[in-house]
């Protein structure tokens, strides 16, 4: 039974490690996207290509993306370093892993989850927020390449310019939403385990009191 549990534990550890690592990367991308948005808007302002209102709104939105991205990176690094520590410890074990060693690691994992539960919940919300936010930024950016003809009543969009500049935004938006969904899934699994532990405590208390 221990071998099976050990493999399952290792699999979950690996999945969450990858998710945490990707999360750090995508948080950095959100921040980079915000900076890019600000730089493009400042350049547009300096060159006086457009009115001041549109770039100013873009700078403000880009600034929010930078702040959210920065906060997201800090939270992601905290989550990542904890899971890396656990993964390194597991990797250092020699086969076969004993019952007690794997139980000790399960305790470490659940206590790690209890400690970081709030941060993980924040990351779920941040992921959803960033996903929709970047999506909106991408749409706003796309509008720059949209033109409307009053005479014919038709909309035209410069697809050659819109795709390269907005595709990264849509990619980051989709990835943010997926990341939030996977964190939600992870959180749900460990919340269920915590509920099982709460129920099991009655049994443990009973055995301890018999002492």
């Amino acid at each position, binding site marked *: 039974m221990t071998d099976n549990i050990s493999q399952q534990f290792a699999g*979950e550890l690996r999945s969450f490690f990858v998710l945490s690592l990707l999360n750090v990367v995508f948080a950095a991308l959100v921040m980079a996207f915000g900076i890019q948005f600000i730089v493009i808007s400042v350049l547009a302002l300096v060159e006086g290509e457009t009115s001041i209102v549109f770039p100013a709104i873009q700078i403000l939105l880009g600034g929010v993306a930078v702040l959210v991205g920065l906060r997201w990176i800090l939270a992601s690094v905290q989550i990542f370093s904890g899971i890396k*520590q656990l993964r390194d410890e597991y990797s250092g074990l020699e086969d076969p892993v004993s*019952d007690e060693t794997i139980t000790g690691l399960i305790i470490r994992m659940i*206590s790690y989850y209890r400690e970081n539960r709030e941060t993980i919940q924040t990351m779920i919300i941040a992921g959803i927020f960033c996903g929709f936010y970047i999506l909106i930024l991408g749409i706003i950016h796309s509008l720059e390449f949209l033109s409307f003809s009053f005479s014919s009543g038709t909309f035209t969009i410069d697809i050659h310019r819109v795709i390269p500049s907005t595709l990264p935004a849509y990619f980051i938006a989709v990835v943010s939403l997926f990341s939030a969904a996977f964190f939600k899934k992870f959180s749900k699994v460990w919340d*269920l385990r915590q509920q*099982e*532990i709460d129920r099991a405590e009655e*049994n443990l208390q009973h055995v*301890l*009191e018999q002492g």
Partner: protein
Amino acid sequence: MGGRRTSYEIYWEILVFCKTPRSFTSIINRCDLNSKTGQEYLEFLSGKGYLSIVTEGERIRYQATGQAAEYIALFTRLYQSLFDTIPGFKL
């Protein structure tokens, strides 16, 4: 990385570590406890008969008794069953 552990988890860690006689300092270091709470846990477990005190000259050591085996086994079974009963996390 002690994290937020329940007292039952700490009891288990102490009992497993004390399968061979251990000093107070090594227990609190290994189980990531401060002196005060470490003393409380050891007193509780000794009082319930899960730990016996072994004196070697001036040195005091703690060792898990046969009674502790039941608690260790139940705890191990309960925690490992978390991976049996609940579908795991996968990317």
